[in-house]
């Protein structure tokens, strides 16, 4: 029987957890709207002495660059995530089928890539010198992010434990081909895991600055995280620069508050995009995904 008290306890627990999560983020937001002098004098506080938008002004000082990099990132995220879902599920599904010959070998093949890594430079050489991913949008999509063993494994585990083998057998006996089974039976039943891996892939692409750092040369090809990171790095070093005009500039540039502003800018779109994924992940919980 439902226990009223348990439900209250659960709500209390979650309210506490939510506050623990939201309050720090709120602080970040408030600091990003505080003046740099105020921070230097009084530290971080929820009630700043001086509100200002100067941190955001500074970060957005080159709107064209920001828009370009947003565009790059949005494209690579959307396109990359879609392709990622396709090839990840295409690799994971066969691995979930008990009857597949050499299944153990291929699983090991995938798992090994999670555990061992050749290092940055040989990867760089293969991708850049040999495959010529350099200074174009594909360098943000393909290297490294398009597929990883971890996602494959999660999908495989889901397929294995959620799709009943009898279902597939029945379909087989009805004469359905493997591809049809995959597309018309398995995928519709796997919405939660597709949403999960879709979320992971989206986050991977959205947060990536690595590929930009290594492959891209012109700023117009950078991803948004890399642009933000550069703004911060250049600011830090500029403040130690010897040129008189540069130092004059940095004397008034908000450094710490810019950092917070960038965190907000980076998180913002995710907060908007996340409910979309959440719908598919949570919905299944009480309704139930698999019916006989």
């Amino acid at each position: 029987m439902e226990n009223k008290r348990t439900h209250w306890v659960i709500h209390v627990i979650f309210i506490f957890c939510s506050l623990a999560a939201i309050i720090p983020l709120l602080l970040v937001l408030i600091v990003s709207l505080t003046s740099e002098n105020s921070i230097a004098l009084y530290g971080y506080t929820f009630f700043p002495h001086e509100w200002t938008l100067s941190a955001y002004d500074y970060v957005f000082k080159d709107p064209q660059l920001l828009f370009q990099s947003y565009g790059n990132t949005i494209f690579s995220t959307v396109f990359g995530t879609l392709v990622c879902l396709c090839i990840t599920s295409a690799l994971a599904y066969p691995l979930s089928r008990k009857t597949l010959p050499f299944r153990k070998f291929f699983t090991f093949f995938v798992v090994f890539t999670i555990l061992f890594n050749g290092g940055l430079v040989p990867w760089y050489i293969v991708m850049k010198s040999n495959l010529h991913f350099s200074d174009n949008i594909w360098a943000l999509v393909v290297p490294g992010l398009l597929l990883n063993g971890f996602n494959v494994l999660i999908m495989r585990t889901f397929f294995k434990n959620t799709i009943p083998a009898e279902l597939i057998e029945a379909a087989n006996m009805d004469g359905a081909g493997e591809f049809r089974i995959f597309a018309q039976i398995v995928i519709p039943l796997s919405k939660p895991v597709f949403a999960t891996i879709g979320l992971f892939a989206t986050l991977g692409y959205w947060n990536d600055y690595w590929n930009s750092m290594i492959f891209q040369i012109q700023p117009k090809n950078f991803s948004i995280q890399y642009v933000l990171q550069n703004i911060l790095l250049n600011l830090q070093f500029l403040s130690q620069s010897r040129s008189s005009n540069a130092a004059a500039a940095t004397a008034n540039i908000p450094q710490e508050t810019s950092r917070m502003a960038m965190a907000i800018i980076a998180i913002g779109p995710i907060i908007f995009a996340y409910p979309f994924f959440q719908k598919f992940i949570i919905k299944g919980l009480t309704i139930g995904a698999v019916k006989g």
Partner: protein
Amino acid sequence: MDTIVKIETNAMAVVKKRGTWKAILRHKVLYFLMLPGIIYLLINNYIPMFGIIIAFKNYNYSQGIFGSKWYGFENFKYLFATQDAYIMTRNTLLYNLVFIVVNLVLAVGMAIIINEVRSNLARRFYQSAVLLPYFLSAVIVAYLVYSLLNPDAGFVNRYLLKAFGVGDIQWYLEPKYWPYIFVITNAWKNVGFGSIIYISAMAGIDTEFYEAATIDGARKWQQVKYITIPMLVPTMVIMTILAIGRIFYSDFGLFYQLPMNSGTLTPVANVIDTYVYNSLKTMGDIGMSSAAGFYQSVVGFLLVLSTNLAVRKISPENALF
């Protein structure tokens, strides 16, 4: 007699081989499905693995990888030679063991409890909220923690401790509090995200199980214990094995940024990744950093193999491979 047995064994072998070949052909569509992924992994992951050999070489650019002199295990020595090396290895291991256990329990717990929230809106709100800390970078988290523990103007020293009448604590000079700080911060940052996997796994559990159980008079807690958790076991096992595979890696950002450069915290904050970073900061030695990476990978790999073997003995269908 012998010849007949031999002919029979040969015949069986032929039948088996023909059987395997037939099975392959029967599943050929599945192999085609796997092909793009396999090719990608080959190119993106396997081909670059040649780099591992650098760990054993005294690398020189002009001589290239194969021309450089063989160095044996020289590049690995700094990982074992000193007391510091022992400490940082111990730290890495202990922290990861605690993280694995704590995060597993909390993530699964959170997934289960969130399922019990009746209001759809509340459920979605809570789940989104606990996910937020994951998106904050380690630097930001370090500053947030600093705003709490700052000896000068930090919230804890200024308000909390005063309220209890306790004197100022120099948080950044006292190693003894930091194991707790790291565990709590790590959980706060990662549990919300980790629970997603379990939530989606739970979504795949057939509701007929729950319906049947309710009809039989099982209480909520019993349903959790006998249906939910066992059905989550495969996912838990996989996640744990993978976590064990990364037991010698750490969240560099967490251990490097949180202590705010306070060297006094080193005995509790130094892990393999920060140790390597500090060691090589002035030297940029390729071979040595490659050796560290190799060391971490090998240990993780061996542990995964052994854990997988153990799991295979207990419940074969949950093993990784």
